[in-house]
């Protein structure tokens, strides 16, 4: 299945160097979890602070168990704020 994978701010560098912008498309197997992708892209766990799937916040406790679905958009930020 295909998902959209986005890393922002200081996590951008964990995306492949030939990326355009902050999003890549990934072909992943059924049952792939958020935590698996965080590990696969070498994102330090403590830096995966704000994790959204289709814009909805996923609490840390659900990241290892929640499987992604075809067409999901997974977006991850380190701790950030603004105003």
């Amino acid at each position: 299945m295909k998902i959209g994978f986005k890393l922002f701010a200081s996590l951008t560098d964990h995306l492949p160097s030939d990326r355009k912008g902050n999003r890549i498309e990934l072909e992943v197997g059924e049952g792939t979890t958020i935590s698996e992708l965080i590990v696969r892209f070498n994102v330090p766990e403590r830096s995966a602070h704000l994790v959204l799937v289709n814009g909805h916040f996923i609490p840390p406790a659900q990241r290892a168990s929640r499987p992604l679905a075809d067409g999901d958009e997974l977006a991850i930020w380190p701790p950030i704020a603004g105003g």
Partner: protein
Amino acid sequence: MAWNRKLLRVNLTQGTCKEEPLNMEWANEYLGSRGLSAKYLVSEIDPKVDPLSPENKLIMATGPLTGTMASTGGRYTVTCKGPLTGAIACSNSGGFFGAEMKFAGWDMIIFEGKSPKPVYLFIENDKAELRDASHLWGTSCWHTEEQIKADHQDPLIRVSSIGKAGENQVLFAVVINDLHRAAGRSGVGAVMGSKNLKAVAIRGTKGVSGIKDFPAFLKATTDAKKVLADNAVTGQGLPKFGTQVLMNVINEIGALPTRNHRDVQFEDASKISAEAMHEKRPSDGKSHLVTNAACFGCTIACGRISQIDKNHFTVKNNPKYWGASGGLEYEAAWALGAANGVGDLEALQYANLLCNEQGMDPISFGATVGAAMELYEMGVLTKEQMGLDTPFGSAEALAKLAEMTANGEGFGKEIGEGSARMCARYGHPELSMSVKKQEFPAYDSRGIQGMGLAYATSNRGACHLRGYTVASEVLGIPVKTDPLVTEGKAELVKAFQDATAVFDAAGICVFTSFAWTLADVQPQLAAACGEEWTMEKLNAVGERIWNLERQFNNAAGFTSKDDNLPPRLLTEPAKTGPAKGLVNGLDKMLPEYYKVRGWTPDGVPTAETLARLGL
């Protein structure tokens, strides 16, 4: 005590400058800056006064931590009755001006009356005098600051001034200090302009004396700075990416108001984001962002210093704008960009530069342009009326309208009245995306429910800096709450509102609250001002300030009917994103909020609440 215990009263009608002792009884109840200046304003003006008349007063005020070694202790506020809203206006700015006021020995300056001719106030420590500003009138904030420094042959003078927007009484004119820091909302610059007061220039060399317990203050401020440094947001995120890092976040959660709140997601958000500011431009190989910057005493340094593309159509023939300068911050980038459907980063920076140069609030300006673009697309406004084609997404229209508004030309004069007056004039008051006639900042309250309540009840009209529940609802600071529900938001909004009032009154930046709670601020204040400044007392001060501001607004004629949102947010569901199908549930939150506040169902503080707060 960290106060100088001294204020300067400037009667512009008579041309006099007089020293007065600071009312320390009031300082004990309202702390300083936002709180104390509100107390003076409420005590000295008729709430029903015309904001642009000589009877309105304008107060510039520091807090007890302003000018000290407390991190971010450089803030000052400009307080008056606001011309955009008719409500109390209290706009807060960083930079270096506030600290300089403190170093010169003053806590506060109260301007009253109206000068018969343009003047500026010059302060050199104890000496204060009004000087002729006829050579400055009609010029920009940037020129005014440069000229005053040249006139006095002192590059270390700090200047707050108005540009042409303030002179022309654009209702969202700001007071600019240090070139690109602004007391930005509610039109405080127009009040300054109405008084023929062009600038305030200060040179202070006394430093801050009177810290109550200096060893304890040294320890408290050092400890608190470590908290900021160790926090991933204030220690790393904000300095590197600035506030604009929120652009992609807020777009992703479906709360980025787009095209006058028609949409909640902007297809070009990534082009105007913090990440885009770091990218190298194809045209010249340089990134938009040059460096970050800090205000006085700040150990966060979230400010952005950028350089516009010299080849961009907005500045190609205008080298004046080629240098590195302030911007873009998140709010400005949103208001000038997504709010109008404009995804051209360079055009946004050009409009932002004009806002800084001539002293306009980019939020209200950009949002008003968004409303004008909607009226244009509906055929209500025409090219003939506006002087140019103004469809959503037009960078050319944005740039031209910024020039016209800053210079008071053509349709720019109508933009300069803000969206509420403009939309009402053309028969569509519902299209003004505002509360109490002040335009929304960059969060759509269909996707962040608590912000709807925060906007509706903000004492200075729609504003994110009076109760920033985004911190909790989106960013998880201090705890994560669900942005799509209304439950629990009344308490959350009240907590943010009261705490923010204390940060503002202390003279520090509210951005510290991404890492600090009041428990981090309290030891600093107690060491600076005295041990009686306990947590209990600070909590009471915050709530007291909020209720004092509310009382002023009620006396000015506002009622619970004004604690409202535009119909679009209450009846037109979000079209996309997580909030798809949702409107804002203000009707569920507002009655609960009044209860939590100890107000009547009509939004009036009860006698019991007033007595509890000593009001």
